[in-house]
């Protein structure tokens, strides 16, 4: 919006005229600036999706490489070799690294001068539709009951868009595949059972087994409410995976002790990382959510410039 001021007309005009003209100009520039923001947001969304489905973030690649180097199980070594070859090949040819290109989960930050309107959501959806056609992405989005496929990866409530205030306008995408998403779980633990958190996370992977395409990244939400804790768990997947707190490391080690290994075929690494996000909660509640993410821990961020 600030850019509108640059074009304020100057010259021999009366005060009223000048104010009117300035206001008109502001409105006009405001409107066109607004459409510029929206189209830039749409392009940035599609760009971020392309980046995410083809190229894994450097911290994820480092985590996979490190786990591969430390693996002692020969079957697991073979799985890691395939995964690393696949990552390199997808980058080289410029194709999605997995045929399940997921559903689009989007995180936005908006600076103070960009208001949150319906247009913002529509711009993101437009970016998803463009990406689906251009990359291409597999059309995965369907009506939950009729199972009718919309064909463009959008629909009511999809993409999922989370908005936060920020200094700049950014779009982060987290395309989420179904294999790992389907084995994610929530528990409302008794507040006195804090020791049960680790057990719940490990048990989640015990049930998940090879179905979640391990080695996985586990996003763990603790606190908030029933709905809030699931969002926390997913947001935890946005954190860098190449460092962990001692609490996260402890849970990760416990998961790896059960030895499910890459693809459930056994091995030293079942989880590449555990990432935890917490929020305050009711004194009588201890919500815990585990959002399972396959080794293709895809995410990418683009700054929206206009």
């Amino acid at each position, binding site marked *: 919006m600030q850019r509108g001021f640059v074009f304020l007309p100057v010259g021999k005009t009366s005060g009223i005229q000048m104010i009117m003209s300035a206001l008109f100009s502001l409105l006009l520039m405001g409107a066109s600036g607004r459409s510029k923001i929206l189209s830039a947001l749409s392009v940035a969304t599609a760009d971020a999706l392309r980046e995410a489905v083809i190229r894994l973030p450097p911290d994820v690649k480092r985590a996979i490489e490190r786990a591969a180097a430390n693996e002692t199980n*020969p*079957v697991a*070594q*073979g*799985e890691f*070799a*395939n*995964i690393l*070859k*696949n990552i390199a*090949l*997808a980058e080289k*040819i410029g*194709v*999605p*690294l*997995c*045929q*399940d290109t997921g559903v689009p989960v989007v995180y936005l930050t908006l600076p103070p001068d960009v208001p949150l309107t319906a247009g913002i959501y529509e711009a993101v959806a437009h970016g998803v539709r463009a990406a689906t056609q251009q990359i291409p992405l*597999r059309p995965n989005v369907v009506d939950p009951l009729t199972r009718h496929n919309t064909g463009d990866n959008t629909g009511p409530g999809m993409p999922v868009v989370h908005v936060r205030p920020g200094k700049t306008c950014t779009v982060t995408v987290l395309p989420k*595949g179904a*294999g790992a998403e389907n084995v994610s779980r929530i528990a409302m633990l008794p507040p006195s059972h804090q*020791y049960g958190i*680790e*057990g719940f996370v*490990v*048990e989640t992977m*015990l049930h998940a*087994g*090879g*179905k979640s*395409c391990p080695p996985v990244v586990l996003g763990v939400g603790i606190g908030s409410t029933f709905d809030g804790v699931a969002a926390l768990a997913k947001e935890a997947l946005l954190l860098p995976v190449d460092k962990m707190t001692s609490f996260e490391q402890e849970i990760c080690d*416990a998961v790896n*002790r*059960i*030895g*499910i*290994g*890459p*693809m*459930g*075929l*056994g091995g030293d690494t079942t989880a590449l990382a555990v990432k935890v996000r917490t929020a305050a909660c009711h004194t009588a509640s201890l919500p815990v959510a585990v959002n399972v993410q*396959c*080794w*293709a821990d895809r995410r990418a961020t683009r700054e929206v410039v206009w």
Partner: protein
Amino acid sequence: MKRKPFQLTTPLGDEVLSLHAGDHVELSGIVYTARDQAHLRMKNEGIPFDPKGAVIFHCGPVVQKDRIIAAGPTTSARMDTLSEFLLDAGVRALVGKGGMGRGVRGHLKGRGIYLALTGGCAALAASRMMLRGVFFKDLGMAEAIWVIELDALPLVVGIDAHGADLYEAVKRKAMKKFRQIQNKKD
């Protein structure tokens, strides 16, 4: 370091009987993709290809203009109750991810093997594939039977013809470990 992978070429024969769960293999030759719908139709209307020594691939590929773009494995367990008639007809190997039920393990005994393809490795898999034909195209891209020629696709034996099942062994061990961890905490 691990041994060199065994080389298998279709149609398969008795050579699969000597392999063991955990062995690495590279598979070349023709495989037939099939998911739930293709299995159902083959069961009712007959198998549209020669099943002797054939390989079934649990996969719904992305096909564009006669080319395989992406072709990772799908979850094999969905075909647990739909695989016996194929093995009876002479199919020697099933390829997929996640392993299969106890029933299939029994049907494979003395006859064939289950091969695991690394989940998510769609770019790698597609790079070793050439599209050669299609049956049941009316079932749609994901469910049709695509005839694919493989060039040394890297796989691991998940279930062998002796009754050994890697997934089952891993699950059993994981459950035991989990109980140990829980007991220590309680």
